[in-house]
């Protein structure tokens, strides 16, 4: 696209001149490249490499073997099912909400409030979400007290689960749905009105439109967004850190434990191998995500 715009405007000779100036303008890329290397590349490499180092800096695989520890495996298991469950529920609710927004004026009040609210809840959550859910379904929470005093239902009859892994489900769904709305609504907007018109002209109903056009076109985007939600929950730390009182039920909390307690001998670099484990999961998820997104882009031309 760039070539088609530049070639008629710029005659041949300045172009040759430009080639000579190439190195100077390439210098302009240096500060950003250095910054990214120092604060993104270097930390990532350190995080991954320390997993292979022992306390004295020698090469070891013992930290990787520590990944097979039942406690660590359990944390990975918890992280995976928590992320999967909240991603699926969040994706379904979010997609339903996006569907409801079809046909709403893009510049209307509803859209701008939904956009801003989703942005806040998806990105700002963290600590605040922990507070919100303690106030809602904590031991003295609004809903807990209401259910107990008015309906006689004790949600904590089998013990308080809010500060354990199951307690993370509702807060996680609370930030997953808004993220789904943010990421999935552009896909819905790529549905062309012409397709609906063609469907109507061929005598199709709304149902047949969704069955033969809408759903097949949107499916790759839907699964892509689902994976993004999974990745989002899997890497989330703040809510769990602020909510869970003790123990390290999910991997990010395990990493915190490994980073802050230097006393456990032979575990100096466990944080590194935990980080490696997380990265492996994230890379797998994000690779499938990018494949799905490329598939989805086919219909967005």
């Amino acid at each position: 696209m760039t070539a088609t715009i530049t070639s008629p405007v710029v005659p041949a000779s300045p172009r040759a001149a430009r080639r000579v100036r190439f190195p100077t303008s390439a210098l302009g890329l240096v500060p950003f490249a250095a910054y990214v290397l120092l604060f993104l590349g270097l930390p990532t490499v350190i995080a991954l490499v320390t997993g292979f180092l022992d306390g004295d800096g020698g090469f070891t695989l013992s930290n990787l073997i520590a990944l097979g520890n039942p406690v660590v495996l359990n944390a990975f298991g918890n992280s995976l099912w928590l992320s999967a469950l909240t991603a699926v529920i969040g994706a379904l609710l979010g997609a339903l909400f996006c569907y409801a927004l079809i046909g709403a004026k893009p510049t209307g009040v509803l859209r701008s409030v939904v956009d801003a609210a989703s942005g806040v809840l998806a990105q700002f959550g963290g600590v605040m979400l922990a507070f919100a859910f303690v106030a809602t379904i904590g031991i003295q929470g609004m809903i807990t007290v209401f259910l107990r005093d008015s309906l006689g239902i004790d949600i904590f009859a089998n013990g308080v689960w809010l500060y354990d892994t199951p307690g993370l489900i509702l807060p996680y769904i609370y930030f997953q749905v808004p993220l789904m709305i943010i990421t999935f609504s552009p896909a819905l907007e790529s549905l062309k009105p012409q397709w609906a018109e063609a469907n109507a002209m061929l005598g199709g109903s709304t149902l047949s439109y969704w069955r033969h056009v809408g759903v097949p076109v949107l499916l790759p985007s839907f699964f892509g967004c689902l994976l993004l939600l999974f990745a989002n929950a899997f890497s989330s730390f703040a809510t769990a850190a602020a909510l869970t009182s003790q123990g390290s039920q999910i991997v990010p909390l395990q990493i915190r434990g490994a980073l802050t307690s230097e006393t456990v001998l032979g575990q100096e670099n466990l944080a590194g191998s935990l980080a490696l484990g997380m990265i492996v999961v994230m890379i797998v998820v994000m690779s499938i995500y990018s494949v799905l997104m490329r598939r989805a882009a086919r219909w967005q031309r």
Partner: protein
Amino acid sequence: MSRLMEDVHPGPSRRARWIIVGVIGLLFLVPIAAMIEFTLRKGLGGGYDFSRWAAVFGGGLGNEYKPIFTGLGNSLLLAVVTVVVMLVLLVPTMVLVRIRFPKLQRVLEFVCLIPITIPAIVLVVGLAPVYSVIARMFGSGVWTLAFAYGVIVLPYAFRSIQTNLVAVDVVTLSEAARSLGAGWLTILFRVVVPNIRRGLLAASFISVAVVLGEFTIAALLNRVNLQTALVVVNKADPFVAVIFALLALVFAFVLLIAIGRIGGTPSGGGRRGRRGRRPLPTPSEKAVA
């Protein structure tokens, strides 16, 4: 045409839309309402009053709440420095790549989206040694965190700026400026920047929102920011912590409404500009959107 479009519209009926939006919206308001109810509780005796809100706004908070104000101050400082880091490092690079090195477009985009793949908690494992070196060079001032925050806002900032950069066709603009004899700095500051100021503003706002909500990196590098201070104060007085969390939430909401108004985010006015002005979206833009 528009009548026909409405007739064959595949979306929900007006009533179905409001039922779905209403039910999900109300469910999402419950925790917010619970927070408000929580801050109004009058202690063990039951009943409600505004005494805690009055204390927060009347300056009636004692020394034990100092961490919140320290944290708030630190977070605001970090927000400003992060925006500066982002504007100074990212913007010229994006413009340069767009105008001079279009082949690097995909690389830049890939790099800017990496922080989504690398969880902050993983980044912290590697940032800890980096920051022990930085502390020796620049001291342990809280502002140094802004370098790390600059990385975590990259995906959001990139997205906002890129949408705008593509929509105004800076390539043609810069060719025109150059044929009139403008140098690179003139092109950057007098041609490109004024044209993408919506994107820059949106990128700055989203960066502020992300920085104000950041917890992971500050907590594990032992720095005080708004979120870590809230967690600390929450242990002593959960009511005041919740009040500040609510205020921060409202602030972020207003900020994002402003982004929507300015346009420039993919979900805001940027889309309008894209449809109106540009016939063909580029593949890279779609991957971002």
